[in-house]
């Protein structure tokens, strides 16, 4: 029997009152109303796929962040902080902030000036149709897969937390997303993402506030975690509240990783790849109204990204310190999902790591607040799914349909294709959700599958932007070699688990550590192959590379603005706060 379905027989974590249901229903009504209202402003391709390129920096920046703030993100990283401690915060700090600032100040001018509709579209301009086809097909495939898996994960959560039927949850949430994206296109998706950003904070912020009150502040929280983990004989109990001081050795921290993996694997490759080349997030910034807004948007996103650990990582740490069995009063120890979902786990009433956020929600939130918290989780799911669907729609229409199937498609036919593609994308996602339901292990591999394409893509894009000698053949073969080597390393470790000590430099490496090092190697392979092949093939002329490559692109003169409106100034402020946070939680 599918382990997830065993959950169906278990009791639910929380029970919604009529007041909570009113809040949830009001949310659904509002997002549909927004979609209907925006329908009339999505008539051209620029309107439907790029939101008219008229978003302000604040709207584009919050949507940029919100598209990534899905429910899997919220609950998954809360669960990871329970499992790995504050090390999980690196995915919000060094695993995001430097890359967002790099996107804003270095890469955004190229994306903005060449007026591309997508990242594969940039690859076509820079490297030709081969690299475009490879990246767009892999992106479309992964996006739909991710959308379906998000959908299924959310439906399971609704079942575990609330006792809702999985089929009804999938149907209602996916049809809602389909309606508002098909009606209003990217503008509708962005509007709802900004709305969802506020709801997520409104619904989740109370948990860390009340949690810190109960724990006695940060020092009380640290003392309780140390005491609880020591009682449970957990190795390195003190490492759960230190972000950097335990990264000198693979064996000193719960993740089995060292600083090389975090700084270079996560910070320099995975993060740079995701935040600068994953079209799901980059599309939001491309919709900005001018270059200054396009540069400010990722900086605004970075400022809020630094704060997300407060509502995601802190609840996981609070769970380590405060969660107790309501019947016996003894410490509650969460376990891996497969154990929690097994028949034995259900019989013992075990909970998985990913349930820590709903458990904390149920701990502090009574009627009304609980409804808002659940709405935050639903909103997170919807924003993640809408992001996937709108990005898929654009890449399909411009980079697959428009580039490979109907090269002479008119603007009207592209908008029609976009609307149909939204419907089809959601239907395929629903199919994927049911596929995952019958093959639970796929969910475990999603992050790894996704990283197969992101790390090498970053190598290709960054060389394309910064090195004019990179050729079309170099770009294509580098991207292919990077992707294939990543898949190869993954299969190698699966077939021979001992290989982990070569791939991740340590036999102690956990899944996340393996992902970091695999990304680092495949990025290096992509770069080396791109460089070697480029040096052996004929480059494009400087004239052909105008507006695409650093040094050959005149950056438009930005209007004279005060210091407080300057992207560089705010980029420096964010960088300083980022460094201060690392020192505080060292």
């Amino acid at each position, binding site marked *: 029997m599918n382990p997830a379905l065993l959950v169906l027989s278990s009791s639910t974590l929380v029970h919604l009152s009529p*007041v909570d249901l*009113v*809040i949830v229903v*009001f*949310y659904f009504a*509002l997002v549909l109303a*927004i979609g209907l*209202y*925006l329908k*009339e*402003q999505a008539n051209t391709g620029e309107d439907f796929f790029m939101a*008219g390129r*008229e*978003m*302000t920096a*604040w*709207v584009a920046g919050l949507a940029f962040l919100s598209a990534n703030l899905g429910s899997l993100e919220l609950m998954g990283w809360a669960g990871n902080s329970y499992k790995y401690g504050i090390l999980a915060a690196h995915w919000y700090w060094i695993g995001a902030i430097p890359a967002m600032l790099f996107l804003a100040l270095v890469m955004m001018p190229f994306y903005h000036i060449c007026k591309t509709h997508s990242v594969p579209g940039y690859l076509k301009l820079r490297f030709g149709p081969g690299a475009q086809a490879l990246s767009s097909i892999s992106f479309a495939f992964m996006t739909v897969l991710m959308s379906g898996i998000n959908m299924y994960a959310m439906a399971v959560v609704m079942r575990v937390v609330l006792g809702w039927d999985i089929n009804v949850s999938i149907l209602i949430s996916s049809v809602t997303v389909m309606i508002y994206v098909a009606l209003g296109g990217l*503008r509708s998706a962005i*509007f709802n993402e*900004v*709305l969802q950003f*506020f*709801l997520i904070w*409104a619904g989740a912020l*109370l948990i860390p506030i*009340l949690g810190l*009150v*109960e724990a006695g502040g940060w020092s009380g929280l640290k003392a309780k975690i140390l005491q609880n983990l020591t009682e449970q004989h957990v190795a390195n109990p003190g490492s759960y509240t230190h972000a950097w001081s335990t990264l000198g050795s693979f064996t000193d921290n719960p993740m089995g990783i060292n600083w090389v993996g975090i700084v270079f694997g996560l910070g320099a490759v995975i993060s740079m790849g995701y935040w600068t080349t994953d079209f799901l997030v980059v599309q939001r910034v491309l919709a900005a109204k001018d270059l200054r807004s396009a540069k400010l948007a990722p900086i605004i996103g970075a400022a809020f990204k630094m704060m997300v650990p407060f509502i995601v990582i802190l609840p996981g740490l609070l769970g380590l310190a405060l969660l107790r069995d309501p019947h016996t009063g003894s410490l509650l120890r969460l376990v891996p999902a497969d154990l929690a979902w097994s028949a034995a786990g259900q019989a013992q009433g075990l909970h998985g790591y990913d349930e820590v956020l709903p458990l904390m929600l*149920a*701990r*502090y*939130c*009574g*009627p*009304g*607040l609980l*409804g*808002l918290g659940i*709405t935050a989780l639903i909103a997170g799911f919807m924003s993640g799914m809408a992001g996937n669907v709108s990005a898929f729609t654009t890449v399909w229409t411009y980079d697959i349909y428009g580039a490979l199937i109907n090269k002479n498609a008119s603007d009207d036919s592209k908008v029609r294709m976009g609307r149909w593609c939204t419907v089809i994308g959601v239907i395929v996602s629903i199919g994927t959700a049911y596929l995952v339901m019958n093959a639970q292990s796929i969910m475990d591999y999603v992050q790894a599958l996704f990283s197969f394409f992101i790390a090498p893509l970053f190598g290709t894009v960054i060389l394309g932007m910064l090195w004019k000698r990179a050729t079309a053949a170099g770009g294509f073969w580098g991207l292919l070699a990077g992707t294939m080597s990543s898949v190869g390393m993954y299969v190698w470790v699966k077939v021979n688990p001992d290989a982990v000590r070569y791939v991740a430099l340590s036999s102690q490496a956990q899944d996340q550590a393996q992902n970091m090092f695999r990304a680092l190697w495949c990025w290096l392979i992509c770069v080396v192959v791109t460089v070697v092949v480029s040096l052996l093939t004929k480059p494009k002329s400087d004239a052909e590379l105008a507006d695409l490559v650093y040094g050959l692109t005149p950056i438009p003169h930005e209007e004279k603005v005060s210091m407080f409106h300057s992207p560089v100034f705010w980029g420096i402020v964010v960088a300083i706060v980022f460094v201060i946070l690392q020192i505080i939680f060292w």
Partner: protein
Amino acid sequence: MKSGGSLSIWFFIGVSLAVNGAIICGTGIYELVSPPEHQVVLYTLHANVWWGGVLLILGLFFSLRFSPAKERARMAGNS
């Protein structure tokens, strides 16, 4: 940011926060009068009253600041 029509995204956000805040604050006040049988941890802090109040005030500010009438007036002033 406006949509091309007279409704700003911030207006929608204001409405959402105001409605949710009113419901949560109202529920909290009802619980003050009639305490529930099963109380959440830190119930005595009455988080739903003050948190609902914060959301309501924030929501009303956004709703009024970006109301359709003000947006129309602003657009007329710009044109």
